[in-house]
């Protein structure tokens, strides 16, 4: 299944706001996040439960359910505005261009249809002209691609006859059967055991190399992120607090939340016992989010300004930015000393010029 390689920007999300209008008030689940994703790239979205990482993904694929609503910003996929599309156009988009795989494959597969039936249905929904035999052939090819053997037998089996890892493979096959450009994987390995998780991660890496699609990988496991992602966005309480290439996030984290997450995890390759350093406090109540930086109440470096105003993004390196007042301060200090240097430089120049005269 070799496809012609595309390059450049696949998805662009700009200042996206998503709110849930609940009886208790408006919950700003996603509060202004922006990023882009190129073809052939895997982006990880990391965050705790309730940080808005799934909501954000659901709005790309148009599966946001009432009372959730996109209230601002734009989503552009291959140059087309996703939010302006009608219901019919969205149905066409899903599967063909964007596909999604979910955390729990048991609840996503229909228990009363065979695997073959469901795969063929997915294909026929998007390609009305395809014949039954052709569809079955493609479904079997797909199952083989995701590493399922004995496909003819599997096509006739029901979801409950397969193991968790197998079901997740079927989910992936179903997502990829119409060759989407963008795959959104919402915690695809969280429900699986580590040995099965390793199999699925290898499979996804392999498939991505073959198809050159872009993948958004939502997870809370930093180990998985290090394994599969090219770049990472860290979310906290609906805000994107840090964003950057995977190496920068792990080796030069700029936001105290990212640092805290990295520090609070025991490492499997540690040589001796080290006490864990937890992030104190509890996650934000999204109904009454704090003013200013949402992480400030739990942040050990919090200053007065953190509690009052949301910090702007500061560029920390190539494509690496973080929203933190500490970094703003550092940058201002740098600029100041830079200006001072420049001033001093120009003064000596003047002096030299004067000497010449």
């Amino acid at each position, binding site marked *: 299944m070799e496809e012609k390689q595309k390059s450049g920007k696949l998805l662009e999300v700009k200042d996206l706001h998503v709110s849930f209008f609940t009886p208790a008030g408006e919950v700003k689940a996603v509060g202004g996040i922006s990023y882009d994703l190129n073809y052939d790239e895997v982006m990880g979205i990391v965050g705790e439960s309730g940080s808005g990482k799934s909501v954000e993904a659901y709005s790309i694929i148009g599966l946001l359910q009432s009372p959730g609503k996109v209230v601002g910003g734009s989503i552009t996929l291959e140059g087309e505005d996703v939010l302006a599309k009608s219901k019919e156009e969205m149905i066409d988009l899903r599967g063909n261009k964007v596909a999604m795989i979910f955390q729990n494959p048991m609840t996503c597969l229909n228990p009363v249809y065979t695997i073959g039936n469901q795969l063929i249905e997915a294909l026929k929904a998007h390609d009305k002209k395809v014949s039954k035999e052709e569809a079955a052939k493609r479904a079997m090819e797909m199952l083989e691609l995701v590493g399922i053997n004995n496909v003819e037998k599997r096509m006739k089996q029901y979801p409950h006859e397969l193991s968790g890892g197998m079901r997740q493979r079927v989910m992936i096959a179903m997502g990829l059967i119409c060759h989407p450009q963008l795959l959104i994987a919402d915690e695809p390995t969280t429900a699986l055991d*580590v040995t099965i998780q390793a199999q699925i991660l290898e499979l996804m890496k392999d498939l991505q190399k073959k198809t050159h699609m872009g993948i958004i990988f939502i997870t*809370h496991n*930093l*180990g998985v992120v*290090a*394994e599969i992602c090219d770049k990472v966005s860290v979310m906290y309480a609906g805000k994107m607090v840090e964003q950057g290439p995977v190496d920068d996030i*792990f080796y030069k984290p700029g936001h105290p939340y990212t640092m805290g997450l990295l520090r609070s995890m*025991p*490492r499997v390759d540690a040589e001796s016992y080290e006490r864990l*350093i937890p992030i104190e406090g509890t996650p934000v109540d999204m109904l009454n989010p704090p003013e200013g930086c949402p992480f400030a109440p739990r942040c050990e470096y919090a200053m007065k300004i953190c509690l009052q105003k949301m910090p702007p993004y500061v560029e920390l390196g190539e494509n690496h930015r973080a929203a933190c007042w500490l970094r703003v301060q550092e940058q201002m200090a740098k600029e100041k000393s830079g200006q001072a240097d420049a001033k001093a430089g120009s003064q000596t120049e003047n002096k030299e010029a004067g000497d010449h005269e």
Partner: protein
Amino acid sequence: MSEKKDILVQVDHLKKYFGVKGIKGPGIQAVEDVSLFIKRGETLGLVGESGCGKTTLGRTILQLHPPTSGKIIYDGQPIFEGEDPWQKDESGQLVHVKTPKPTVANMLPYRRKMQIIFQDPSASLDPRMTVGEIIGEALDIHKLCANKKERTDRIKELLSRVGLNTEHANRYPHEFSGGQQQRVGIARALAVKPEFIVCDEPISALDVSIQSQVVNMLEDMQQDLGLTYLFIAHDLSVVRHISNRIGVMYLGTLVELAESYELNRNPIHPYTKTLLSAVPVPDPEVSRTRQRIVLQGDIPSPMNPPTGCRFHTRCPYATEKCKQAVPQFKEHAPGHYAACHLLG
């Protein structure tokens, strides 16, 4: 095995089968011939894939499930002893034979000494009881408090011990976050001043940033109160962090047991090696360079486990011998036990 008086819990050839309706034979062989000991004041970690029987083992030691056969000794006193009613006949099939009734100790005094912390905090707290009632119930059953004042004082003390507010005693479980609910579960286990606690995946339902708070609290409590833990989890990095020794289970059997850093540096059983290499490391440099052993296939059903070594269907080094004979669980280096034919 080391000095007798240091050992708090000892388990010999423990088996737990769950009968299945409509099926002849032993049914699900959840725990198969496990022997281990837990020293006073240590943490023994148990890891393995889901369905490997680690939770069943923990609960069977506490006799929340009646064991099928084997022996459990707590602090020198046998609390369960029974002969195996499932014997192999000539064709190798397991058939039920009549055995004398197992001897079981009266568990009530032992319940005070052995407690458990469950995986899902919201499911293990009664939604219609306040936190004070939940903790107080344990005190009432064992008649630990002489009067009302003593009882409320003790509840308050326990709540502050686990980092909750003393006013929280009047609240209901749904008013707490997952991390706080787990703290209530821990306070309930501590109420009877136990010596031994089975921690059954106490942190896997919690958020990443909360997990480390609870791990640190469990460590502090062990220090202050001299507790002994059996720590069950599937997250190897957490188990390695908190445990002195780790046992690795596969399909009901214990395949390897060693001191935790020894196990990590020098795993000798092929299953432990694959398990360790499958854990994703939060370090991009390491995960790009390291070699990973990816196991083929899935864990077989404990209803119909493979003959011989139970791992042979997925083991890359399996030989003819592995298919036929069950490997002995024996000591290969001081304190390092494993069950594998390849090790001789």
